[in-house]
């Protein structure tokens, strides 16, 4: 925001309140109420307003207080955000960033525990990225703001308290590249967002058991970084996808299809995909735990794959 005065923020409670997860804390005091705009509760319209502002020269960052609320903005995100650059014959670019916390939290109930990446992934004309660490959150956010394309940045409700030492110098990450988290030889584990931590936890167990998993945080949910993924598949010949998205039509489903299509010859075993159950996330803690993928399941899956 300091570098470019056209960058502005809009969303519910982003200004005076500092954001529901304090992501925009302090910005309103520094940049004023118009640049950090507290909107009324009207997702479809203020997202559309952000798109209109982007078309006319600004660079808005629109926050969905919870990603799930963006379901109300689907009209604008699908029809206008994704399509207008094409429909206008390339005349209007829409450099908007739509971001917010999503994913399964701690007993927040079904509606506050949604994973919208599966719903938005088919929209032509948008890019989707998911951050998972303070380092890549900063880098991806900068990249998203600077991008000429509309980007949906998925944050996770449970990852806001992570602490990490990050460089003082400015850095921008690529929106289209995946991140190699742990190189390995036996199996490629593809994951993103919070499940990265479950995977790394499982990886510790696996290493103790003598396995050498390669862990890749795909980061770019649309488009997939087929080079990093492909290079890994060609090395290990076994793929496990671990995601928090639902099974049906989720990111894992698309990823499975993409890998099969492109790297079928290099696979020694069918691709395994661990996703959340296709269940409205229950409130009860035990049930909620069984809805998402847990490290123990990941360990079992790898053992199965590597037989």
């Amino acid at each position, binding site marked *: 925001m300091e570098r470019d005065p056209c960058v502005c923020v809009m969303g519910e409670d982003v200004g005076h309140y500092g954001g529901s997860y304090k992501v925009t804390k302090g910005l309103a005091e520094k940049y004023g109420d118009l640049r950090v705009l507290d909107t009324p509760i009207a997702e479809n319209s203020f997202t559309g307003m952000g798109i209109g502002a982007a078309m006319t020269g600004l660079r808005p960052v629109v926050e969905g207080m919870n990603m799930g609320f963006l379901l109300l903005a689907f009209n604008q995100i699908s029809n206008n955000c994704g399509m207008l650059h094409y429909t206008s014959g390339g005349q209007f670019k829409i450099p908007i960033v739509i971001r917010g916390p999503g994913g399964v939290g701690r007993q927040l109930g079904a509606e506050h525990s949604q994973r919208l990446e599966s719903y938005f992934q088919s929209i032509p004309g948008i890019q989707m990225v998911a951050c998972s660490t303070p380092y890549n959150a900063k880098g991806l956010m900068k990249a998203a703001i600077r991008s000429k394309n509309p980007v949906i940045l998925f944050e996770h409700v449970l990852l806001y308290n992570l602490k990490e030492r990050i460089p003082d110098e400015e850095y921008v990450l690529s929106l289209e590249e995946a991140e190699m988290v742990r190189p390995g030889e036996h199996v490629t584990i593809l994951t993103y967002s919070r499940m990265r931590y479950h995977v790394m936890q499982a990886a510790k167990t696996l290493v103790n058991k003598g396995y050498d998993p390669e862990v890749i945080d795909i980061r770019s949910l649309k488009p997939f970084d087929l080079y990093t993924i492909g290079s890994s598949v060609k090395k290990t010949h076994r793929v496990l996808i671990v995601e928090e998205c639902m099974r049906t039509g989720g990111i894992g489903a698309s990823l499975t299809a993409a890998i099969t299509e*492109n790297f079928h010859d290099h696979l020694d075993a069918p691709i395994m995909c661990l996703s959340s159950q296709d269940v409205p996330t229950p409130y009860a803690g035990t049930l909620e735990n069984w809805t998402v993928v847990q490290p123990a399941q990941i360990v079992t899956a790898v053992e199965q794959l590597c037989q």
Partner: protein
Amino acid sequence: MATAFSSINVVQHARCDNFSVASRKPSSAFLGSTYSIRLSPSASRSASVSAAVNRKASSVSAVSEVVKEKKQKSVSSGSNLLITKEEGLEVYEDMVLGRVFEDMCAQMYYRGKMFGFVHLYNGQEAVSTGFIKLLKKEDCVVSTYRDHVHALSKGVPAREVMSELFGKTTGCCRGQGGSMHMFSKEHNLIGGFAFIGEGIPIATGAAFTSKYRREVLKEADCDHVTVAFFGDGTCNNGQFYECLNMAALWKLPIVFVVENNLWAIGMSHLRSTSDPEIWKKGPAFGMPGVHVDGMDVLKVREVAKEAIGRARRGEGPTLVECETYRFRGHSLADPDELRDPDEKARYAARDPIAALKKYMFENNLVKEAELKAIDKKIDELVEDAVEFADESPQPSRSQLLENVFADPKGFGIGPDGRYRCEDPKFTEGTAHV
């Protein structure tokens, strides 16, 4: 003298004798009609509504009131005329262009040159011309699927619009938008939307940018205004209300223009709306609501001057309801069987172009020959547009993937490590992405 366009003081349009006339006080055209409607609750309301259903149009036309009156606009020149000769000719030419163009569209559609859903604007020209001819090039216009004439009024060349309709690469959107998605960055026409209501937030965003430029980027002379056009059906949609709220809340420089032609395809406005007086919904959000005779371009122009002026001065939004009518069906695919022929005849008699002509003759503003010259010029212009569109090439395959992203890196990295957009098949349009 009795003309279709009375002076600025008394505004008339179709009357319904069922409604009581409160006080007929002279007022500026900004106030719209001088009749006020008295609808008492329940019983008499349903009586008047059913009576209105029989009369269809007239019940909606009777009303107005100004809620917030900043300044009373005094009649400008000493001449008492609403328009100068130059303005009259400009306005006449624009309306004739709209009419002739749309008629040509109908012809071309039935000849198989134009496809899909085409929504024509015949009859509503006064609204488009009345508002858009007062705008600067930097002001933005947002429309709906009935957008050909808004595009033409805003300055998009007829050739580009016709080519777009023919799906040719020389169209304003390279043939990728079509009838319902007219866009022009040069002329600040920001669409062209197929779903009703979805353009209104975009318009609100454009107005937000204007305010942002002035207040945050400190461009002191930025006073761009956005005019959003939409219909009566849209006024029952959530996005309309959400944007009225935000625009009034932040005093955005926007004018919301309702082109109330009483019909949303086959749904009569009265059958779908609890309170059919749309202008009244403005004050509920803290902005003036104005009702104006949308078949009379001079009246629309007077109202538009006020509303656009308000926005430019930073006083905030205005909701203007224009009573208008489409002479053709909803689209070229609509058999238009539900509308009463009497209603159509009544509105045909109020044809905005004929009315303007009459006013200009009666006030000795123009000679017949001058108008005929304009008619001829427009005929030639539109024919030239058709010829141009006909001869223009269809889009080639290479155009298929080009504009999906502003930055084509968005297609990602392929298995070979290169960005997909660097693959020659991508530029040929044969790559599968």
